[in-house]
Structures are given as C-alpha cells and as structure tokens.
C-alpha cells in the first residue's frame, strides 16, 4: 500500500517508493539518502513538529508537510 510517509506511526518501517515533488526536492532528498527502495523507520513522532526518521543509519528530522510528499510502501514483513 502506497501512502505518504507522514501517515506512519512511531516505530513503523517502510520503503520509499517515490517523491511527489519538483526537481529541487527530489535532489535534496536523494542527497539525504531518501531514494526509491531505501528502507526508513519512524523513530519519533510525538509532537506536531518535525518527525525523526532513520535513513541509512542516520537520523534526520523532516517536517510533516515535506513528509506528505514522500511516498512509501508499508512492508508486510520487516
């Protein structure tokens, strides 16, 4: 099931499917390691503010608006 990353709860894992954004955003996010096929995990999402996610062994915080543009696939088995 393809959903925006913003919809994930804490401790949920998923795989990045694509980015719904312009060239600049796609570029920036791929520099941070968010390319299609990358596994991510939501580490902290307990406030209206930014969400902490694990990407390729680094923790990065991204805003919820931005997370709406990152499409992920919820893995059945992780």
């Amino acid at each position, binding site marked *: 099931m393809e959903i925006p990353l913003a919809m994930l709860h804490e401790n949920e894992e998923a795989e990045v499917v694509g980015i719904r954004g312009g060239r600049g955003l796609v*570029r*920036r996010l791929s*520099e*941070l*390691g968010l390319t299609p096929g990358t596994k991510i995990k939501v580490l902290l999402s307990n406030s209206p503010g930014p969400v902490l996610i694990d990407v*390729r*062994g*680094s923790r990065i915080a991204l805003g919820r608006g931005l997370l709406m543009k990152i499409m992920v696939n919820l893995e059945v088995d992780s």
Partner: protein
Amino acid sequence: MIRVALIGNPNVGKSLLFNNLTGGRAHVGNWPGKTVERKVGRCRYKGEDLEIVDLPGTYSLTAHSIDELIARDYIVKEKPDVVIDIVDASNLERNLYLTLQLLELEANVVIALNKYDIAKSLGYEVDADMLSKILGVYVVPTVATTKEGMEELLEAVIKAAREKRRRKVAISYGKAAEELISRVERAILKDKELSSTYPTRWLAIKVLEGDGEVLKEIERSPCRDEILEVIR
C-alpha cells in the same frame, strides 16, 4: 605549511579527529559575516607544519544551506593542499556520496576510514587498499576515539600534499548528459579566469544542474552568453 581541511557527514567524528590532530589546542574562529563556525588548529608532524580547518558536517556540496556552502566555498576558493574526507566505515554507502562530490571538485582527497572498530564489530570487512585503488586516493583506517591510525593519517596527508595530485575521477552521467557537459565545458574554457579558478567539468555539471551560486558566477563572465546558451 600544509593547509588541510577536514570534511565529512555529520557525526562521523570530525571534531574528535580534529582535536586528536591538533592536540586540543584549537581555537574557534568565525567566518566573516557568517554565523556558522569553523575551527582552525595547528599541528607539527616530522618537521612539517600543518594548518587544519574543521569544516561543518555536510551530506553533500550543493548550495542548499549555509554550512554546505561554507564547506564548498572553502574547498573551491581557498584550495586547501589536502582535504581529509572522514568517512564512517560502519556506514560506507551513505558517506561515499560526499567523497565522490569531493573528487568531482578535484580536491586532493585523503580518506580517513573512521569508526573502523565499529565496522569490524558489525562484521563489516572494509578493504581499504581496494577502496584506495578504485578512488585513486589514500585510504587510512582510523579510530578517533582511541587515536588509532593518527600517525598513518598524517603520513598520508604529507605524502598527498607533496604529490599534489588532483585526480580527475570522471563519473559518467550517460551519453546525452555527457554531450551537454562537454559543450558547456568547452564554452567555459574560453574564459581563462573562470577556467583557472574552478575545475571546469565540475562547473559545467553545476551549470546544467542550475546551481544558483555557480550561475551567479557565470553571469559575471564575458563568455556568459555562450555558456548559458546550452541550457536555454
């Protein structure tokens, strides 16, 4: 004196390595007009004087944020003799992206394969010699927390500084892009000042990417129309 810059992703142990090399005698200095700090330290090794600059941690060298820009500007404009790229050996894939960007910038890179102990404990076997062969730069395994590999790193830095090699790694972007890159590069080469200040292939790639800072620089060139014609 050998001018050395330290660069790497956030949290790879840059500042720890910096303090190891400079003996913690570092003082903190400001970049003019910028709020992000850089640290400058000195170090003597086997009669060589080294000035070491600790740059802000960054994942890439685009013009997105002020710290990335500072790191990039320092390497492009101040042209340090050697750039130590500190790489987290336990997370190579992510870290090598910045390495490739540095090589594209034609910096004189020495790789410190840091957190070598953690990589080992995770069961990773990193072949430093092979990595060195592939990238054409010195690769030194280090553990900054226990100061392992510091002497070897300094040896490699001094060797690299003497050789002054600026290896051009050509990462091919495919036929269509390469054609455009060489067209822009040819136009850039006509501007002597521009082509002697920047690596021309890197500049051409950045023009095609639409990098704001680079385009500003191109605007000042007498050859700007010819260069920009390609991207119109």
